[in-house]
């Protein structure tokens, strides 16, 4: 079936399977920043913005994206570069598999919450799992990013 969506600010017409997840459709159409981690909406790795709200793209049916906007890190180049630099400065970027999903979630958080403290950061990002680091260096990096953004 055909769907029309706004992908990272550009119009896209896609042919998708009715039973396909948005994650699969994105990767099939070359949006490879969106990674598949768990298949059960449990890890946050495939997070994208759907009409601005962070969602697990593995659990959103692709046809539901018809007529809506989808944003991935490809559509957030400035935020990605700045947060990426903060993560790198703290050594908090490890394997990088979860990083694009984390960036998307952090961008959503920075739009929703004015001045989150560490507890608020950890709560908002609780759905983004990381297995390489112990989270604390990520939190330091995210705090640095939010401070720089202000």
């Amino acid at each position, binding site marked *: 079936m055909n769907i029309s969506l706004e992908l990272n600010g550009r119009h896209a017409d896609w042919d998708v399977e009715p039973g396909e997840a948005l994650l699969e459709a994105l990767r099939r159409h070359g949006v*490879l*920043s*969106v*990674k*598949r*981690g*768990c*298949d*059960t909406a*449990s*890890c946050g*790795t495939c997070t994208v913005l759907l009409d601005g709200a962070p969602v697990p793209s593995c659990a959103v049916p692709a046809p539901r994206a018809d007529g809506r906007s989808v944003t*991935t*890190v*490809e559509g957030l*180049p400035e935020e*990605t*570069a700045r*947060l*990426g*630099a903060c*993560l*790198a*400065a*703290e*050594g*908090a*970027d*490890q*394997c*990088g*598999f*979860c*990083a*694009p999903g984390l*960036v998307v979630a952090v961008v959503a958080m920075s739009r929703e919450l004015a001045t989150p403290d*560490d*507890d608020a950061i*950890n*709560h908002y*990002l*609780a*759905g*983004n*799992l*990381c*297995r*390489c*680091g*112990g*989270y*604390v*260096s*990520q*939190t330091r990096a995210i705090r640095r990013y939010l401070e720089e953004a202000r």
Partner: protein
Amino acid sequence: MNEVGKSLPKIDALGLVRGTPAFTDDLAPRTSLCVVAVRSPHAHARILSIDASAALALPGVLAAFTWQDVPRVAVTRAGQGHPEPSPRDRFILDEYVRHVGDEVAIVAAETEEQAREAARAVRVEYEVLTPVLDFETALDNPVVLHPEPEIHENFPIGFEPKRNVASAYSMHVGDVDAVVARSEVVLRRRYFTQAQQHVALEPHCACTWLDVHGRLNVMSSTQTPWHVRRIMARALEREVKEIRVVKPRIGGGFGGKQMLHGELFCALATLRTGRPAKMVYTRREVFEATNTRHPMRLDVTLGSDRDGTLRAIDLEVLSDTGAYGEHALTVFMVAGAKTLPLYNKVEAVRFGGRTVYTNRVPGGAFRGYGAIQGNFALESALDELAGELGLDPVVLREKNMIAEGETSPIFAIMGEGTEGVEMIVESCKLPECLRRGKELIGWDAKGARREVAPGVFRGLGMALAMQGSGIPTIDMAAATLKLNDFGSFNLLIGATDLGTGSDTILAQIAAETLGVPTGDIIVYASDTDRTPFDTGAYASSTTYVTGHAVRTAALKMREEILVEGARSLGCAPASATFDGREVRGPEGAITLRDLSTKLLYNEHQKQLMTTGSHLCEKSPPPYMAAFAEVEVDTGTGEVRLIDYVAVVDCGQAINPNLALVQVEGGLAQGIGMALWEEVVYGPQGHLRTRDLMSYKIPGREDIPSIRAELVASHEPSGPYGAKSVGEIGIDTPPAAIANAVAAAVGARVRDLPVTPEKVLNALPG
């Protein structure tokens, strides 16, 4: 030092954060066939008949394989040195299936949907056999998991398949029974550690294709490209020279990618059809059909004087390797080899036991690799002994722990699968680690326990740990440096960065040695055709072993640059110097930029290329003192981790930030094992924890505070004084947290994980 000791950003950081296609599934040819496995629904069964003809008739299906269609060569899937210390007890596909999820058949089709449809269409008739699910009953069980005649051990590892024994080992120093008999205090305790899943966020993935020369190319999320190449060649009855293995970026490994998984199945499809093929594991497949940490039963006996002088340690272990013996012996041995030397002053020490087969997900390599299991038992038992003696647990350790300039007979007796290597400990900052750790956690100020709300208590616990740095006389790595025009260098290494930043760390070592900025080093890694050999990323080896090779290559390169620079300046090499920027002679200088360009285009043209090679000769342990503060609710048994302090001696950290994140990440994984993570089976051997909804790894709210610090240390045998740091972080949490819970509420939990239910049941009174 200009480059070493600096927290430089990872060289691939921004590319990964941007989501640049870098992982196997991103890079696999778009025309790849999709490979899917038919998996066993039974824990133990014999395939009576199997028919893939209906699957092959479906649209898009190009190939199907059963055990009757593949070479029958016994192999191990453990990515270890040659010959492997694990039993060769597996075939690409077999007539028997030995755990739920074991491979029954392989299909390849144009699309994933078609391949899954085809897998469902393979008709299989099973004779369901009684499974062995309880590892304490596996030895000499009438049900034998491995009756096949072709399987074998490569050298004596105690392999007795007819008794369900994958490996056995024992050693002793002194007469343990006699020393225990005359000890003033004797403590005997039994501990259990559970199976744990790696949960690398990138599921296992492999793809294969034939290149223009007809060679089989393999791209895989592997930690050991060379071992994969060698084992694939054996399993497929091909020559090693016919195969190339490449590792792109990997989304975490932790040992879980030190075994072969999809590579052989993709290869079958590519060799049959000539088409590229790709296999991406579902998360459920990762749970059911890769590997877990080996569960263990550990019986500890301690003999001690009343003043806390340890006299004897006895550690008897039963390890569960599941359906196949991947890393069976070596993980088992590390449970003793990387714990017992901590307390080197005992008169007698004994270690031994068996690894047995059961119809469960195979055990395999997993960060800590036996040390975490042994550590939980030994460090819990020491705390229990401290309790009996009325001693501060820190004082008990201080009295007995190993120190700089000392040795342990165990270093020489126990290696990994073979004998070890004698070693004097040249760097051990445990006293500093303890002092700083006590200060950070407030050990003396806070006291044993405090009630913070009605029925809610806080308590402190601690544990020491040691690991190793590579496997002596086995781990070998090489590195090649190539000088480019305009002064940059290619660094070619076989080492396998799992996301840890080892590519960056090795570039820093090259840059430091050459005297150039790290940015002038272009790293290319992990390609069996195009980079020199490396045993792989395991056993905490990359910085210590490959780092040495890089330094050697760089020292050679400096020499060559000096010779060529002197030639260009018309002076003797002995009268010239090279500072990384220019070669300076008595009468003038030439920049590296100019020299390198002239060398390729203008005068005395030649390629400067040097290779360093390093064999690990000893395995200096990194050390850690760890302290946990927990809060225990006696109404529910809930344990909340308040704070975790870890102070580490890893020698000189090449990149302190990346070393600290290794520690933090290891701790988080160890904390997960201590409190929440558990592989659970149903009564028929079906996995009940097969997704991330039922198997819970810690999230960021579960670990609010980890405070890791490195102490100043220098290991004379390491590159720029470095030891390892990749595994040590994971070892302490199970013991330190169990000890803290016992300190807080008197509940001693001896089987992991420390769940609220077990705490509630263990509450005194």
